[in-house]
């Protein structure tokens, strides 16, 4: 599940990417590169490789962050998202619902400039979403 939203302050596109399949970081990388159909070592390959690192290595995993550091300080994951991360209420509600089903919840912001609006969501969905249409398990 990928949740797109715009920050109220600057209208910047941000995404929270909820993964349900238990995959390692390396497996996620291989899956993204395979889906992208890019030639090894090419510019496009490095673009996708960097995108993977931006999302799954450098972005904050909200679920892990809450579980490891903030589960005592905040009464619930909902509270943590609202008060610490200051996410919009409608986004928080969706994430709180998805908490138990998700392996990780990556808060991806300040991404590539072309990852905006519908195009950005579709781009990420094709590469990152669990079990996109047509893909065999």
């Amino acid at each position, binding site marked *: 599940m990928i949740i797109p939203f715009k920050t109220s302050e600057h209208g910047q596109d941000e995404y929270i990417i909820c993964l349900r399949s238990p995959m390692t970081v390396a497996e996620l990388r291989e899956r993204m590169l395979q*889906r*992208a*159909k*890019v*030639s090894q*070592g*090419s*510019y*496009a*390959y490095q*673009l*996708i490789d960097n995108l993977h690192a931006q999302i799954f290595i450098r972005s904050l995993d909200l679920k892990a962050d809450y579980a490891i550091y903030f589960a005592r300080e905040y009464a619930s994951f909902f509270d943590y998202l609202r008060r610490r991360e200051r996410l919009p209420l409608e986004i928080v509600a969706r994430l709180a619902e998805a908490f138990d089903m998700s392996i990780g919840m990556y808060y991806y912001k300040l991404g*590539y*400039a*072309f990852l*905006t609006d519908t*195009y950005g969501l579709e*781009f990420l969905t*094709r*590469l990152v979403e669990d079990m996109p249409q047509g893909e065999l398990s």
Partner: protein
Amino acid sequence: MRIRTGFVSNSSSTSFLIITDDELKEGAFLELMGVTSDSPIADLFRELFSDVINASQYVDLKHVNTRVSPEAWFNTDRLSPAMIARLQQAAGQGLKAYFGTLDSETTMVQTFFCTDAFELENERIYFNYLECAW
């Protein structure tokens, strides 16, 4: 790097040079960038190709005057020393050259590519995308 005075802007532009053995086609361009035509990210590079073609001045290097600087061929002063050297090498070989500028103020795709710099080459195409002006 260029320094502008009297006008503050946070936009950028990048000059590019492409030298190819034949007319630049989308398929060859996608191959250079490393995507297949059925790649789910091919549309990003198709848009880049379209922007490059629309922004390009085209010169057939078979017919250039090699006694003048390549900058005269394109009526520009934005060729880097590396671009000049490459064009001089390619002149007279029947190759084709495309030179132009992309601008971060137009589309989000161009905005992204104006934040990057690279130099790519395969057996058919040379693509210099290093000259970023901020």
